[in-house]
């Protein structure tokens, strides 16, 4: 019998509290390489908290989150995990291309131009590459953020509410890019309210008030019940 694939992203008894408020109850989760996982739940259910802890932006109150065995937020984990936030955060005074160059150089990439050009073209940003994203619409800023998340190397891609502000072609392109990343061996974790997307992934984890209420295939549960 084949041994199970090793977990690339693993949470062990991880919790997060803000004073008396518990944002995340003890959570155990292991995501394998190449797996596409959707985190589904209503507002305040703990999706973003978990995503941010995996990215190293939030520190767990207890428990650990590991990326390929390295603590989330460590130098090694940061090299392996790419995070696309729900709200794009970009420099006001750098063009799209300068953002890409900066990100790639921080990740030690020398030959980034071709990959960047492909992504810009796919997401319809090629003509705006020299523009400042501070003058973009919400959707274009989101696309810039997506390019920055995908242009660098990664083994884990965590994405928070990716479809907010995206037009249908942009959304379709991004879904395809995430699938491509999973086919290339990356584990893709997406926090979303979009149940049509959640229905297409390999695994669905439902969160309610910081606790896991479902963990399994999306076709084995009434998905609306997870956000109701």
């Amino acid at each position, binding site marked *: 019998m084949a041994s199970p694939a090793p977990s690339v992203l693993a949470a062990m008894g991880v919790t997060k509290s803000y004073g008396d408020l518990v944002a995340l109850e003890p959570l155990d989760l292991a995501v394998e390489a190449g797996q596409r996982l959707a985190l589904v739940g209503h507002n305040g259910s703990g999706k973003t908290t978990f995503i941010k802890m995996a990215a190293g932006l939030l*520190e767990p109150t207890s428990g650990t989150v590991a990326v390929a065995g390295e603590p989330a937020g460590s130098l090694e984990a*940061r090299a392996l995990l790419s995070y696309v936030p729900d709200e794009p955060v970009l*420099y006001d*005074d*750098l063009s799209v291309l300068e953002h890409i160059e*900066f990100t790639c150089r921080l*990740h*030690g990439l020398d030959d980034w131009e071709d990959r960047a050009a492909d992504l810009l073209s796919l997401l319809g940003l090629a003509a705006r590459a020299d523009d400042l994203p501070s003058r973009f619409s919400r959707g274009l800023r989101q696309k810039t953020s997506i390019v920055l998340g995908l242009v660098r190397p990664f083994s884990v891609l965590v994405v928070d509410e990716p479809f907010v502000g995206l037009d249908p072609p942009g959304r379709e392109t991004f879904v395809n890019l995430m699938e491509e990343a999973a086919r290339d061996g990356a584990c893709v974790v997406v926090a979303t309210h979009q149940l049509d997307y959640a229905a297409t992934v390999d695994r669905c984890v439902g969160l309610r008030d910081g606790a896991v209420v479902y963990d399994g295939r999306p076709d084995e549960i009434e998905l609306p019940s997870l956000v109701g």
Partner: protein
Amino acid sequence: MANARSCQQALADLRRARRRRRVADFDFMEALYRAYVAALFGGAALWWLALRVGGKEVGAATVGRVAVDGPQIAGAVVAVALAIGLRSGGRGGPLALEAADVRHVLLAPVGRRAALRGPAWRQLRFGAAWGAGLGAVVGVLASRRLGGQWPAWAASGALAGASCVDAALGAAMAVSGWRLGRRVAGVLALGVLGWSAADVLVARSTSPMSWLGQVLLWPLRWRPGAFGGVAFAALLVVVGLIALGGTSVEASERRASLVGQLRFAVTMRDLRTVILLRRQLAQEGARRRPWARIGAGTGSLSGRSRTPVVGTSRATRTGARRAGRGGEHPAGPTYPGSRRGIALSALWHRGSQGLLRFPAARLARLALLGAAAGAAAEGAWQGTTPLVAAAGLALYVAGLDVAEPLAQSVDHAALLDGYPLARGAVLAGLFPASAVAMLVVGAAGVATAVGMAGGGTRALAVAAVIWVAASLCGLAGAIISTVQGPPPLFSDSDLMLPPEAIGAKVVLRTLWPPLVSTVGVLPVLAVRASSTDPVAAAVANAVPVLVLVVIVLVWVRNRERLHAAFDLALGRTAAGGRVPDGRGA
């Protein structure tokens, strides 16, 4: 993964590219105008201060006393700065990164210490420049009263000031990098303050903070040992830079978000937003449990009170009897009692509830501001006239905190409109609770001033009279600032003014609240100059100040009506499209 050298190079290139873009967008004329305005106002203020302070040189005995006690007292100021730094570090400060730096640099596989070194150095340089400038000004002013060569005073002041600010920043970086947390940082801050206080009490310089005080007073007495204070500051900076790598990304992101908003609010001169954001930055929220519980209010401010229900409280029953004798508003809804009495009771209750939820840190800050105002007033009494401005400013800042219940009502205008009372009446009705709190703050000032003066019944009587006037006037200035809000970007009345006058109008609008607060301390100067009985002079001079407080209250109560009348006279619609509120006159 990228190696450290290439990452450093990428960061350096990023900063270069951004600087290039900033330079390209640089508006030379605007910068020149800003420098001109800063030089004009700064120079005028310095000139005035120097003239005022230089009025009277102190005697040899006082100089001797300053040489002995001064280092410890100056050290106490350094200790306060260090304590602020330690507390800031406990909350993840002092670095204020851009949100994009947190997301793109701190989440990249780059060593955190290397990534944060640049912003840390920038902050240290900026802090040292400000500290040196401030210290030099203090030194020059001291030279006018204490004698000696002003360049020597300026140099020692600059060194002490720069060391003080950078010591505080270094301590903050160390505490933040080592993740000592708020409690440990608080204990350390108390330790620093306690050590400095002990130095003041025993009149000996045993702490590095007092050594920095000795640096400030080098022109009076050269003490080579004071270099220990400078070395201590340098050590804190080095330790802070070493510890930088441990800085929390979570705290950095929270601070980045708040600091961005804070800068915008400062640009818009929106003082209230600045205060609220600063509180968030300091994680200074209202207590869930109040320090004390007060009796239940009548609840007459809620919409429910319109229902003619006989209340159970004494105030309501009394009001009901009065209403039975002929209510004030026969045409309106039937209220269960005297609306004014009930409303005042409810507003007092609401104000007290808010004040009793102040966190300990805010109470400590208020006590400190009160003490600082008292110390400054005593300094003015002793002859350093410009210290009245410092006392007024301290009371104004304290007033901004104490006026919180009123400020909350201004913030939530929609709630305010839901009450069956005029907006101005609600705001004015919130004054008594804040006034009582402000008198308590002022009491700390009285204790400090009387203690510094060496006690005595007469000093206490004079201080007590001035205390009431100064405290209430300090609050009045803060209330003006809170009620008037940030200046509009452009108002209709600006159309009638020449551009130069608009600038002066903006300056006046910004300055007059703290000026009103300062008026409350002016009786100190009047009593000092008076040849009659000091207590009688204090009473005579406190009366006009109290009249000013009443005028401010009347303005708060009728502000909207006055604006509406003014607009009507000019043939315009009501300001901001708001309908003048005529209820509950």
